[in-house]
């Protein structure tokens, strides 16, 4: 699995889910905001997938088992709080990860440096909404808490090391440590704390503390359930997805597959 495929699929699939909101958002400003985020993610996906091959072949002609996105991003939208919970979990992760990739000098550094500006906006959008919903009305508080709970079990997967990311993505240790030891070992597996590439354990702890801070400020409670269901660990990254994903792909790919070889 290439890291570009994993990151590209995350962006592609979440963009698709956000695109489903078009015409259904609670307020016009959110029509604009959600579409804006979806477009940013689609742009990132196109760049990342193009590093691997033809973006349309990859998006439209792979089957469910060949997609490498996190299970988190394929989860159906649910209500607005559910969507915002997914945005919070993912955008904080993506922001922290891209900051670290941007700080290295690997293949993804330039792309991450550009994307991190967009992702900072996505993160701010999600955090502001978690605050509003968590600390809004009793109903919004309850819905926001439910959204956080429902998606919590998909968050552990984000910190399963992405195979190949270390060699391709960065040549230094994680930026946050401030060290510059470079190993640049092709095929490094990127296990946590190995000293090469993203320090996944450090990323996880940075994510946990950022999410905890927002959740608490929003007067919400950090979910306590397992973050890594036993069988779900790393599942999306291995091409093992949840049931709604196949249906999402069926809709996304139908037209393209109906006209083999056509250009659009």
């Amino acid at each position: 699995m290439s890291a570009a495929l994993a990151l590209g699929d995350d962006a592609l699939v979440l963009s698709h889910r956000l695109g489903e909101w078009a015409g259904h958002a609670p307020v016009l400003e959110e029509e604009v905001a959600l579409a804006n985020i979806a477009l940013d993610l689609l742009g990132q996906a196109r760049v990342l997938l193009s590093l691997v091959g033809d973006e349309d072949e990859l998006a439209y002609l792979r089957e469910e088992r060949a997609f490498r996105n996190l299970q988190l991003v394929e989860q159906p939208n649910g209500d607005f709080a559910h969507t915002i919970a997914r945005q919070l979990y993912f955008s904080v992760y993506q922001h922290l990860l891209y900051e670290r990739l941007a700080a290295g000098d690997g293949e993804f550094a330039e792309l991450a440096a550009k994307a991190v500006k967009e992702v900072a906006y996505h993160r701010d959008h999600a955090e502001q909404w978690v605050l509003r919903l968590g600390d809004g009305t009793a109903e919004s508080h309850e819905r926001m808490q439910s959204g956080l709970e429902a998606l919590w079990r998909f968050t552990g997967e984000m910190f399963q090391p992405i195979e190949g990311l270390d060699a391709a993505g960065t040549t230094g240790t994680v930026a946050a440590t401030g060290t510059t030891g470079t190993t640049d070992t092709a095929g490094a597996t990127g296990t946590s704390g190995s000293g090469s590439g993203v320090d996944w354990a450090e990323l996880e702890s940075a994510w946990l503390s950022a999410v905890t801070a927002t959740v608490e400020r929003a007067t919400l409670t950090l979910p306590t359930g397992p973050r890594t269901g036993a069988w779900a660990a790393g599942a999306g990254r291995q091409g093992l997805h949840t049931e709604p994903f196949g249906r999402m792909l069926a809709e996304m790919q139908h037209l393209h597959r109906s006209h083999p070889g056509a250009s659009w």
Partner: protein
Amino acid sequence: MAAVTADQKTQSTSGTAKAAGTGAGPAAGTAPEAADAALLAAFDAAVAADDRIEPRDWMPEAYRATLIRQMAQHAHSEIIGMQPEANWITRAPSLRRKAILMAKVQDEAGHGLYLYSAAETLGTSREELLDKLHAGRQRYSSIFNYPTLTWADVGAIGWLVDGAAITNQVPLCRCSYGPYARAMVRICKEESFHQRQGYELLLALSRGTEAQHAMAQDAVDRWWWPSLMMFGPPDDASSHSEQSMAWKIKRHSNDELRRRFVDICVPQAEALGLTLPDPDIRWNEERGQHDFGAIDWTEFQQVLKGNGPCNEQRITQRRRAHEEGAWVRDAAAAYAAKHTTPSTRTAQPAQHVEETA
């Protein structure tokens, strides 16, 4: 909202329609009729001189009401118009097309926002206008009551529907009401871009496989006549036209704009390699314009009455989005009431930017 203040009356008698009244003064209610006549004369003179009427200027109540009606309908059309296109976002056949379509639907929400803001300068509110839309008391363009059945419909909407909208709206950039005219300048730029993209989408299909070409032709066949209806009823049956033209809200008659549109589309259809579904279209040397077949005004009336293919679906989805979003808007309001003072509201995001920079 439209009470003429004593302040405005005083200024108007000194000979200007550009009375910058505060709007906060008590309605005098005792002003002499002569003052009203002077206000009206100044207003008429400003319109005649192609001056822009601005929100604080005095304006006839009927002018205000007409503008609110038209701008609201325009804003509603942008919002309802998101639906037929959004219907294809999740099925767009390439990532490039998907990005273009998402950007377009996003622009439409933005256009709705501009237009509601422009309408609000006349003393109404977005909430009030949306309530009227949801209650069926204000309209949106009849075109959005037609379904998007294939991907090619996205192209046909861009080419024909946006094309018709531009033909209608470019003259509005010179409309007598300043906020509307300025909104239209921005909107028309983006619409022209969408229109070219729609044309280019159809061109790709037309030059594609046989199945793609057939898809494009079918879409044009279905969208052509409804697009012509976007210009409204024929001149002899258009109830608002005469007054709107006198006020320079409207600059050209429905039929005049419709003919202009047909003249634009005929060569474009040829360049596309597609035909228009009207055997009566032919060049009229004498008039220097195309003649074309009769429009089915019965269908138009049915769609306006709510009996088009998607009227029910469109308004139901809009109402549902609004109703299901109520708790979100309530939450935002409750949060703002708890936390917002003018300084903290701006301080919070700024602080966040610093943290993450």
